[in-house]
């Protein structure tokens, strides 16, 4: 469905800013306050963060643990197609794969969600009817986010009206890097409101934020503004999801829950292609934030090619030998 831009939206008054959770009620009072807060967060030592993920990456996950990890990872996949050439047919084909990732093995769990552009949300919704699989739609002038706020909000409302259960928004990286934190915050708040009941994932595009300090600050900003998930990347910028970035984000959601009691999910997206990568992420989730995050409600993989590698490894565990790419379906 297509919706027309609300002609009054551009001149409409911004709604009053809702306050963040109790301990942080005053940190969004002014640009100076939010800056002081974000820059008061402990820094991240990049060398140390990389050393930590290197050790976690050396965990040896075998046999029963591997089987559990593969099935869990499959159930956490946001099966994604975000191409200019996407069509309703392509989305329906992806939805069929989401329902039964491995047609040869009905015990394979379904994925968590199908992630598409907003205009195809209704197609995905229809194709996934009767399942628990969510429809996620990217919005807010994805992937660059370079549009006026009115356009972004219209984009969100359109996707929600099309049936999206989850909205993946992008933050204004330009504003963030220029130090206009409050603009970023206000925009997330406005998008959250436009989402209604839909869950909001906030894409930080960590490949453009570059430093891990910036990743931590952006994570906190997104959580304060009410994001239900924080997500690394659009998949359109390299590097996308990396383990050190995911480490810092897991630390952020862990610390945020410890202080506010509210749990926020994490979604690394882009660049995770192999079962090995996925298992490393699960180990990281397990040992950094804890097992509470080990469910599709709190952790997702944004990926397109990862699912097939998970399926091949799953077949390998069951049958004892590797099959080939023709034993899993192309989307």
């Amino acid at each position, binding site marked *: 469905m297509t919706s027309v831009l609300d002609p009054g939206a551009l001149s409409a008054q911004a709604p009053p800013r809702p306050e963040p959770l109790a301990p942080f009620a005053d940190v969004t009072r002014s640009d100076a306050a939010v800056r002081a807060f974000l820059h008061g967060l*402990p*820094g*991240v*030592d990049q*060398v*140390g*963060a990389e*050393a*930590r993920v290197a*050790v976690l990456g*050396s*965990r*040896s*996950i*075998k*046999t*029963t*643990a*591997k089987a*559990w*990890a593969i099935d*869990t990872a499959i159930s956490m996949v946001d099966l994604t197609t975000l191409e200019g050439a996407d069509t309703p047919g392509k989305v329906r084909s992806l939805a069929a794969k989401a329902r039964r990732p491995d047609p040869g093995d009905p015990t394979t769990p379904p994925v968590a969600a199908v992630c598409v552009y907003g205009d195809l949300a209704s197609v995905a919704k229809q194709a996934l009817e009767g399942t628990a699989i969510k429809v996620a739609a990217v919005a807010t002038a994805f992937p660059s986010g370079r549009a006026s706020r009115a356009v972004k909000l219209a984009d969100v409302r359109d996707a929600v009206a099309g049936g999206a259960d989850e909205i993946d928004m992008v933050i204004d990286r330009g504003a963030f890097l220029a130090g206009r934190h409050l603009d970023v915050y206000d925009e997330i708040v406005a998008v959250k409101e436009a989402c209604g009941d839909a869950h909001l994932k906030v894409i930080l595009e960590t490949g453009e934020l570059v430093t891990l300090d910036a990743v931590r600050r952006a994570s906190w900003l997104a959580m304060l503004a009410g994001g239900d998930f924080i997500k690394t990347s659009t998949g359109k910028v390299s590097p996308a999801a990396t383990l050190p970035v995911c480490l810092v984000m897991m*630390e952020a959601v862990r610390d945020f829950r410890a202080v506010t009691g509210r749990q926020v999910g994490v979604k690394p997206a882009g660049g995770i292609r192999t079962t090995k990568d996925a298992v490393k992420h*699960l*180990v990281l989730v*397990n*040992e950094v934030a804890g*097992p*509470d995050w*080990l469910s599709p409600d709190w952790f997702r993989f944004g990926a397109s090619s990862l699912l097939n590698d998970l399926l091949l490894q799953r077949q390998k565990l069951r049958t004892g030998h590797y099959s080939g790419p023709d034993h899993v379906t192309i989307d």
Partner: protein
Amino acid sequence: MTDPFQYAPAPESRSIVDIAPSYGLFVDGEFVDGTGESFKTVNPATEEVLSEVASGTAEDVDRAVRAARRAYARVWGPMRPADRGKYLFRIARLLQERAREFAVLESLDNGKPIRESRDVDVPLAAAHFFYHAGWADKLDWAGLGPGPRPLGVAGQVIPWNFPLLMLAWKVAPALATGNTVVLKPAETTPLSALLFAEVCRQADLPPGVVNIVTGAGDTGRAVVEHPDVDKVAFTGSTEVGRSIARAVAGTAKKLTLELGGKAANIVFDDAPIDQAVEGIVQGIFFNQGHVCCAGSRLLVQENVHDEVIASLQRRIGRLRVGDPLDKNTDIGAINSAEQLARIRELTDIGEAEGAQRWQPACELPERGFWFPPTVFTDVSPAHRIARDEVFGPVLSVLTFRTPDEAVAKANNTTYGLSAGIWTEKGSRILKIADQLRAGVVWANTFNKFDPTSPFGGYKQSGYGREGGRHGLTAYLQGADRP
């Protein structure tokens, strides 16, 4: 809630090592029977007897020293330095080729997790040989003065905490500078040194250049006191170090000692907290805390104390204690019953003196020597756990309010081997490091080692340096300190 993600056992196979039921001494390029009683070496994780090892007597030591002297005078001393380098390169490559074998053997005999023996001990040991192999033909240009000459025969006594790595720290520089060695590995961990003897043969190292005499304290004393030893190098306890210094006093022997420590790990309020917590864990629980430079005193700024301790406890709760050969184990077994008893004694004293003991809920295996990771808070500088080296997985937490207080407390120890500083402020790192009386100061990291970097202590942590150009001078005469 039970953990949904249970890591299945991932044991490294021990079939790669072939442990003989008994071992003799390695003298003059051959394995020979000792004249003394033999003793058992056990796997500290299971108390299983691994092998019987000869205990070298004074007579055995004398034979080894004479072999070393012959090799020094006839072969190794006169050899072209570039050729000595070739042998060292060969040994380094063999250590790499047989890395898995060494790692498994080290974990079996010592109790350390395979992740550490595989990723730290063995690669670093090889790195020490590579590094010193490169120096062998460049000593004249090392900036140590004109024409530095070898000393002769080095008698070396090493500890049980890093058996192969300490061997490498001792043997590599001695050989590179043209000396020959008689080495005594620790009583509880002789096996990797005996496997190293096999590597020496495999490398065609001329007989007598490296001699390995196993045994306990008496054997070590015989090595140190032998009149034809020109140089003594010891790593171990301050107590034994003191007696060695007495034994060597008045002789022409050169001496280096690398002894105990009670390192301060200083965490300022502007530190990268998550990485600092990681560094605290790495500082004290690496190798079960059996590390002379372990960061056993945490000095944390008072205004972040609660936050750091909460974070630290959560992190420690996720450490995996158990089978050293499991690839996912973080903390292995305590090396010996004797050491376990000492750790128990000191921690009991800590509690009796009023410090608060905290240990995570963790299941320890029934057999073997085990001690859970332990944190003491409310520790005062007067407590023994703040002063004595525990040499186990036991952290004492003290607080400070200002940088001056941190420095004063950090230096208030009879030791001075290492220290750590955690802050995001570069200028503070430089200033504090200048004021700390410790041989090694790490900034925003801990327990990182490299053959290019000299290592050694102040005060009762010993004297002399190992590694880097500084380490070469300990084995050369006529060498200026760099």
